[in-house]
């Protein structure tokens, strides 16, 4: 294992976050605060408690998931796409490092950034509404598993994309709708029965539901199913990344 190389990639990527502090940290915090003002204060005051949890508190796990998913994907996809775009990927490919180490460096850094953001949002939310974490272990589990899984997914997108449009395509057209429709801002019990069934096909629902359970013990699907699903996504992404590196897909000719 080439630990120096993992370290080099990891800290190089983390340095990018420091350099783009405004974009990386301030903007997600700002947008989260806006969600709170709009959904929490303005609209939330007209919505009853859900399973004994005030609406403002109810959406905190959903908001964290929203930010976590979007940022994991964008950080990781950009992290690997940029060297491809400017050509510096040659150096990574010619270095004495295995693909596992490349993934550990890039995905590790992307996931770390998302986790930092998650923590910042939790702290920001705490200023607006009361928050209770009943199962801290599972909360951290969902947080870390989601950050890693979606950083892997972002990494895959970054390798697949050969222009900036493709880089934005999946996050914008697939992930954002899934997160919004996956119960970030509502319990699916508030939907008509038909749409509840449809929502069960949305993978993000399981993440948000499980994550919310770790806060308030209220969930749309059972927590065991949520845990099983997040592990399934993680395995799927690892499998896909493994295939990419085995075949050199879009990296080596």
């Amino acid at each position, binding site marked *: 294992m*080439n*630990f*120096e*190389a993992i*370290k*080099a*990639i990891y800290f*190089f990527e983390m*340095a*990018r976050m420091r*350099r783009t502090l405004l974009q990386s940290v301030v903007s997600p915090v700002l947008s989260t605060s806006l969600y709170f003002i709009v959904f929490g204060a303005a609209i939330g005051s007209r919505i009853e408690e859900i399973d004994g949890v005030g609406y403002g508190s109810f959406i905190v796990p959903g908001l964290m998931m929203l930010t976590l998913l979007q940022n994991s994907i964008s950080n990781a996809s950009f992290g690997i796409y940029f*060297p491809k775009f*400017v*050509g*510096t990927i*040659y*150096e*990574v*490919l*010619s*270095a*004495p*490092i*295995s693909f596992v180490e490349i993934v550990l460096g890039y995905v590790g850094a992307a996931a770390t950034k998302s986790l930092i953001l998650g923590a910042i949002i939790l702290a920001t939310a705490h200023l607006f509404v009361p928050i209770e974490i009943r199962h801290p272990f599972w909360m951290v589990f969902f947080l870390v598993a989601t950050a890693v899984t979606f950083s892997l997914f972002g990494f895959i997108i970054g390798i697949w994309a050969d222009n900036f449009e493709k880089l934005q395509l999946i996050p914008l057209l697939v992930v954002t709708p899934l997160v919004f429709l996956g119960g970030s801002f509502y319990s699916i019990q508030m939907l008509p029965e038909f749409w509840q069934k449809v929502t069960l096909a949305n993978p993000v629902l399981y993440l948000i539901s499980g994550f919310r359970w770790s806060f308030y013990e209220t969930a749309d699907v059972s927590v065991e199913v949520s845990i099983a699903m997040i592990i399934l996504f993680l395995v799927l992404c690892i499998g896909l990344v493994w295939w990419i590196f085995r075949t*050199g897909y879009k990296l*080596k*000719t």
Partner: protein
Amino acid sequence: MQPAISVSQLSKVYDSGFQALHAVDLDIMNGEILALLGPNGAGKTTLISIICGIVNPTGGTVRVQGHDIVTDFRAARQLIGLVPQELHVETFETVWDTVSYSRGLFGKKPNPPLIERILKDLSLWEKKDSRILELSGGMKRRVMIAKALAHEPRILFLDEPTAGVDVELRKDMWQLVRGLREGGVTIILTTHYIEEAEEIADRVGVINKGRLILVEEKEELMRKLGKKQLTLELNAALDSLPEALARYDLDLEQGGERIVYRYDTQAERTGIGSLLADLNRAGISIKDLATEQSSLEDIFVTLVEETR
């Protein structure tokens, strides 16, 4: 002695069906400077990219100090530094960070004094805290070289290192290359400037259309393929060459004031003596004479044209 790099039956067919390399065999010796010459698209960069691990070979093997580049890639790549042809740089990083990063990528522990020395050798020390986007093209080229040297490679690939580089940097670069060679580093460079290969290389390889046409000691190559020419300036212009000189390969130039004789230095007899005697007999008087040897460039052009 085991070669620094041993390329055997290496071939590459790109997905487009283009065959960039045809069963190339090449041994590169420890501590030598090998210049690879060839027209654009000849396969030079493909060959280098395969050895460095950027392109997958279609067939054949490459060993670096005995380490297979596929099965034992860590040991093989550790030894190699690459300065690619294009200026690929991390635009927003500082010079210091990007060079230190390169060292880390190759698995070496940080060594600030070494990075400092490399940057000073390349006249980059003053710019160490500048972001790369603020640098000129020549400075960026220096950064690429610094990155390639940051992990103390034993073998250095320079792909067209002097393309678009000013005289001063070119001079610095060759000085650096000589210094590295003195330290035992094996250097492989490709260039379009044939006079550079002629000046600096120990051996020259010529690639054309994916085939290695020849690899030869530079001196040997010049000697073997070198044609010499004898130029005779005449006192009086001739309208045509006399019959008596028909057996020589002569050209009349400059409106008949100059005779050019081409001969092979390897031949048993160069024929100069009898030519001069025949000229004398024909009553042609000579004002001046000069001989000159064909350059590597002439040799190269001839070779490439022969294999076309």
